[in-house]
């Protein structure tokens, strides 16, 4: 009995300690984003919204935010589309070397982002292609396509084939089957792939850093803010990004994943 209590106390203490470790930096980040003063470190001088105001009037930061959104959305749409088409072809048709094709499509997952970025950068330099948001987007499709392909391919079960055949027998063209039958059936995994891509692209640093020049994405802009050292404004933008991600996560948890769990 005593041993049981002791084990319980030990477990809960451990749980609380590790949670404290996990939440410490985030709590400090958010708390000192409200700092009434120039340094985001103790002592805490009181609440002030001034750094959030500073974030919203910062043109460069807002432009970077817009750029990040565009790159994330466009690269994710391309990744999902290409991933879906490839998954459809490889799951529904017998193609020569399909194992090799699958391996090739998954391969970028096993390579560090830094190396992918470096390869693209050397190639762009050699071909004299100027760096822009487009080159960043190209890089982000490279890292997200394997993910989208893998997720969608894994969810393309054989049990869907008969429904597709029925549609085809009723005279639907391939594109109609895909758009009106296959895609709706796979919607949960397509959406999961899409939102995962958006998150990855949105938060990606090294590819965006190496493959952009004048227009930069949010992580790269935050990176250049770090040169000014500890700054409550960095806390403010960091807290905002965190809040936005948690909001998206909550929506997903409540709508998408809640629904798939029931079905």
């Amino acid at each position, binding site marked *: 009995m005593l041993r049981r209590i002791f084990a319980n106390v030990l*477990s*809960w203490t*451990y*749980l609380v300690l*590790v*949670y404290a470790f*996990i*939440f*410490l*930096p*985030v709590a*400090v*980040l958010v708390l*000192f984003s409200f700092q009434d003063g120039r340094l985001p*470190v*103790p002592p805490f001088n009181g609440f002030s919204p001034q750094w959030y105001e500073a974030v919203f009037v910062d043109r460069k930061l807002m432009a970077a935010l817009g750029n990040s959104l565009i790159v994330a959305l466009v690269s994710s749409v391309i990744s999902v589309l290409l991933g879906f*088409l*490839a998954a459809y*072809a490889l*799951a*529904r*048709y*017998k*193609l020569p070397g399909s194992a090799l*094709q699958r391996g*090739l*499509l998954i391969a*970028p997952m*096993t390579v*560090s*982002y*830094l190396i992918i970025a*470096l*390869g*693209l950068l*050397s*190639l762009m*330099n*050699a071909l004299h292609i100027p760096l822009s948001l487009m080159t960043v987007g190209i*890089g982000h*499709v*490279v890292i997200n*396509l394997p993910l989208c*392909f*893998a997720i969608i391919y894994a969810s393309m079960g*054989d049990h869907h084939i008969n429904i*597709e*055949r029925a549609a*085809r027998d009723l005279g639907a063209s391939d594109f109609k089957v895909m758009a009106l039958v296959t895609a709706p059936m796979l919607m949960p995994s397509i959406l999961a792939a899409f939102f995962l891509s958006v998150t990855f692209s949105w*938060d990606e*640093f090294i590819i965006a850093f*190496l493959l952009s020049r004048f227009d930069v994405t949010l992580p790269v802009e*935050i990176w250049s803010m*770090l040169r000014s050292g*500890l700054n409550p404004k*960095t806390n403010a933008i*960091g807290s905002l*990004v965190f809040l936005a*991600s*948690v909001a998206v996560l909550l929506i997903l948890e409540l709508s998408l994943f809640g629904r798939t769990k029931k079905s």
Partner: protein
Amino acid sequence: MADAGTLRSATALEDADRRKAWGFVAPALLWTLAFFVVPFAFMAAMSLWKREGRDLVRIWNFDNYVRFFSENALFQGLVNSLEITVIVTVISVLLAYPLAWIIAERVPKRLQRLALILAILPFWTSYVVRSYSWLLVLSKNGVINQMFMSIGLISEPLELASTRTATVIGFVHFFVMLLTLTIYSNLIQLSPNYRRAAADLGANAFQTFWHVVLPLTLPGIMTGAFLTFVLCIGDYVTPQILGGNNELVLPQIIMLQLGRRADFPMAAALSIVLMLAVTFAYVACARWLKIERA
């Protein structure tokens, strides 16, 4: 796998199907070839070139690799990377396993999902910002130093930031969350029958864990540890922000070649070394890995 073509016997139709299928898979294949395989091959080739002054000299040679093994400043980068990565992987597993176990065993079933979501919530801060927030905690006038000084534990601020310890803390923070998730999903898949059988046969709690639970969750641990290794050894952000310019790791040295020196061939050679390190790690723990085939 059943094939849509089997219903139709005419070979002409099958050919048409096959052409269509190639059309569907081609965009993804071409994208991967053009923007992944070709750049990678180009980079591998470039690692065998040389930089002279401001120009690339396209003479095939192994100078970059020879320099890597002979110049201490470069080789030490690999050593630092490997040391930090191994330390981070071991500490992260040791911290995450008990946490995952407590969530799976001690936390009531209906609260487990919530506990897990909470455990990985800071995962969703921006990657760059996460390292920066550790700076707030560890810097000279940061939370830890000020707290310790106010309670009289230390009189002078400790040098916590810009050290290897800071890099390790930042990494461990990230990977504890990741590993808790993977180990937890392993633990709850474990049938309780194994443990009941062990208990019936007279094993105590420790023996059950050591001889039954641990071996059964080992593949999950190794998969998570391998993922940690790969992500950790290739990361530039955390060591650059938290480790500063002391004890550079390989990605930092690669970025130095690009920035100050514009030495692309050397950066390419170092990237190949980085990739080889990951490949060795894969081979070393391949027999425990269970990466599901897509």
